[in-house]
């Protein structure tokens, strides 16, 4: 609530962000430390690799989502885009297209979806919630229609191998997070486009008066989100070896949650790349730990909910304390 933020002290945004990520890292480290003591399997190379693989997809999604949230928008379609993208790439591969072409085509489909969202928001004046909810619904329908609800088997082996392999001891899937996060970080923090994204989220009127092309930036944000989601679709299809339109169900909420845990404000103009990334891995660690500790899956839900509250509350406290 804006109410509660009004008492915030003047703090330079930069230092604040750094400190915030540090504390989130602290939390993640604490979680890992506890799990290393509680189980003798957590701190094994194999498990860490698993953890990195498991968190990577939501991490990429949450980075894209963060771009959108910074503009005070929201992208509910990302889960559906992931599922749809697995269908696209699987179909293309099975139709005999080379991998690189199939990947590019899938990303272009993501781009088209992002452009459509931008168009709906900028030109048609639709609220982001509505246009992306509509896409969510429709895309699942289109994906199911294309496959008739079935799974498309990807026979191409290279892709699956890639998803399983590691490079320098770190799973390729995690490298893909780096591949997305590094340019995203650069874009957000070190280019004028990034700055304009914050400006648009903070006060679109001010941005417009400064000559910023607000529409273009909204296109940009939704394209980043949709292309990230399509990319996650590529990764997921590689990991699963199939294309299936129902995959990625509910991932939009996980991505948004990761982003918010990572310090992004749903009111816009507050967010980073590192925050959501850590948020995603905190969630992945909770799940991984619960599995290792053999926590009943129902309890696991309850605990996840409570931990989300605890983490964000803790963060609020720290912010106010400063």
């Amino acid at each position, binding site marked *: 609530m804006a109410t509660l933020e009004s008492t915030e002290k003047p703090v330079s945004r930069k230092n604040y962000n750094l400190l915030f990520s540090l504390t989130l890292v602290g939390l993640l480290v604490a979680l890992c430390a506890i799990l290393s003591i509680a189980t003798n399997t957590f701190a094994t190379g194999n498990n860490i690799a698993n953890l990195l693989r498991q968190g990577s997809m939501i991490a990429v999604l949450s980075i894209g989502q963060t771009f959108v949230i910074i503009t005070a928008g929201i992208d509910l379609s990302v889960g559906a885009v992931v599922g749809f993208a697995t269908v696209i790439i699987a179909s293309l591969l099975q139709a005999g297209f080379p991998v690189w072409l199939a990947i590019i085509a899938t990303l272009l489909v993501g781009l088209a979806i992002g452009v459509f969202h931008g168009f709906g928001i900028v030109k048609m004046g639709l609220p982001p919630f509505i246009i992306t909810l509509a896409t969510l619904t429709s895309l699942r329908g289109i994906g199911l229609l294309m496959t008739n609800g079935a799974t498309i088997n990807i026979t191409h082996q290279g892709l699956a191998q890639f998803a399983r392999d590691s490079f320098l001891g770190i799973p390729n899937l995690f490298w893909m997070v780096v591949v997305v996060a590094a340019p995203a970080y650069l874009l957000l923090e070190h280019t004028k486009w990034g700055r304009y994204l914050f400006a648009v989220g903070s006060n679109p009127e001010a941005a417009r008066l400064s000559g910023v092309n607000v529409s273009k930036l909204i296109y940009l944000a939704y394209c980043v989100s949709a292309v990230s989601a399509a990319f996650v679709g590529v990764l997921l299809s590689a990991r699963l070896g199939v294309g299936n339109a129902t995959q990625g169900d509910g991932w939009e909420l996980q991505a948004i949650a990761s982003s918010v845990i990572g310090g992004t404000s749903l009111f816009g103009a*507050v967010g980073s790349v590192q925050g959501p990334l850590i948020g995603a891995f905190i969630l992945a660690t909770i799940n991984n730990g619960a599995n290792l500790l053999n926590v009943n899956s129902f309890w696991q839900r309850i605990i996840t909910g409570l931990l989300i509250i605890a983490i964000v509350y803790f963060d609020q406290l720290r912010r106010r304390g400063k």
Partner: protein
Amino acid sequence: MTTETLASTVSAVPILDLRDVEKQYGPVRALKPLTLSFMPGEVHAIVGENGAGKSTLIKVLTGVVKKTSGTMFWRGTEVSLENPADAIAIGINAVHQEVVLCPHLTVAANIFLGDEVLKGGLLRKKEMITRAQAILNDIGFDIPADVQLGSLTIGQQQLVATARASVRGTKFLIFDEPTAYLTRQEADQLFKLIRRLKADGVTIVYISHRMEEVFELADRVSVLRDGNFVGTRNIDETNNAELVTLMINRSLEQIYHKEKVAFGSEVLSTRALTGTGFADIDLTVRQGEIVGLYGLIGAGRSEFALSLFGRNPSTSGEIKWHGKPIAIRDVRTAIDLGIALAPESRRDQGLNLNLPISLNINLPVYDTLQRGLTLNHRGEIDRAEKQIRDLAIKTPSRRSLASSLSGGNQQKIVIGKWLNHGAELFIFDEPTVGVDVGTKAEIYRLFGALLKRGAAIIVISSYLPEVYELADTLHVFRSGKQVGTHTYREKTEEEILALAIGV
């Protein structure tokens, strides 16, 4: 380019020429066909009542809104300004009436927004901060460049907006009531800046409700009334009375006046009151008395007022209400006691901009409008209509959104919503910011009526002539401390100013 250099050397050619420019917002004719020229290098003042169309004119000139009809010539060639970027591109910049910057970005980022310093496509953040700081220092504004804009007071934000508009290769710079939130001292700095820009050949358009500023700065002045262009005068061929008459179509004798009302018993007093932003404040306010608080931006007056109103409760010291010590822990307590506060920032604290005028005006009194299970709609409507009438709020309907009003008319709501509240102590924080001369007189008359009813008033103002003339007792604040207490006209304005600055 040759035509441009040619045009600028021939001073008879207006830099900007408007022919029959008109602007309508739906049924509202904010600007009726207007023909007006701005000459290169002049300071051109625009005056007019609240809602006369001044800000609308500025918005048309800067491409913020599109004119409904008419033509515009920039150095002799027709231009169509579709959006702010078009205006900026040819060198038109503005400091708008409402501070329109990004609260989440740093001061430096705001100053360079849309015009970032880049190297290899990447932002030079450090350099921008250094340069922004240099700009601020150069102009004489004491504001750090690396803090978030939202952490500054509204006055400081206004200064940042000013700094920002003046450094971007501007050839034509518009100020829409830039001194509304500035003290005399800051205003002087601003005037220095304006003269410097003028010397550099920049054309300045200057909008203000303060006549003395117009006479101090302007070469020519144009008057708007009700969306109509009334006339342009050379500044040395006109005077205050003539302008006021042109503006409001009648003459106005006394502007600052406080009706003589006998003081009654003490309403509120504080002893050594301390809180965030202020310390050790002692003051007393009696029935029939206006207590003025004067100081520079950030002197702690607003914080003090908010603590009396229970928003940011004080941390130590004592408050007495009718002689009895009390604690004011929240706003509700203050209101129930009989304290009303018209806050400083209408945008952030005073108004629900996207709600109807009626709701805004009635917000503090819905308690009394609730009859059993439902609301007394008649009473709600009557009260809204009465305030709109009494304060001459210019609007087609009580159901219009507060955001559709001109700045001054918005300010009237902020004040109006408390007027019939029946409070015993009224705190007005910068009550006449952006209010035209006629309405100002009206507001002062309302103060008089409140006093006669037995109420007490605290007025906070950064506009010294106002508090100087209004206040029975004037307290001067500096950096959160009370540095002087004077009765009416006990000291000269210069002495008070010196005290506030601390020289």
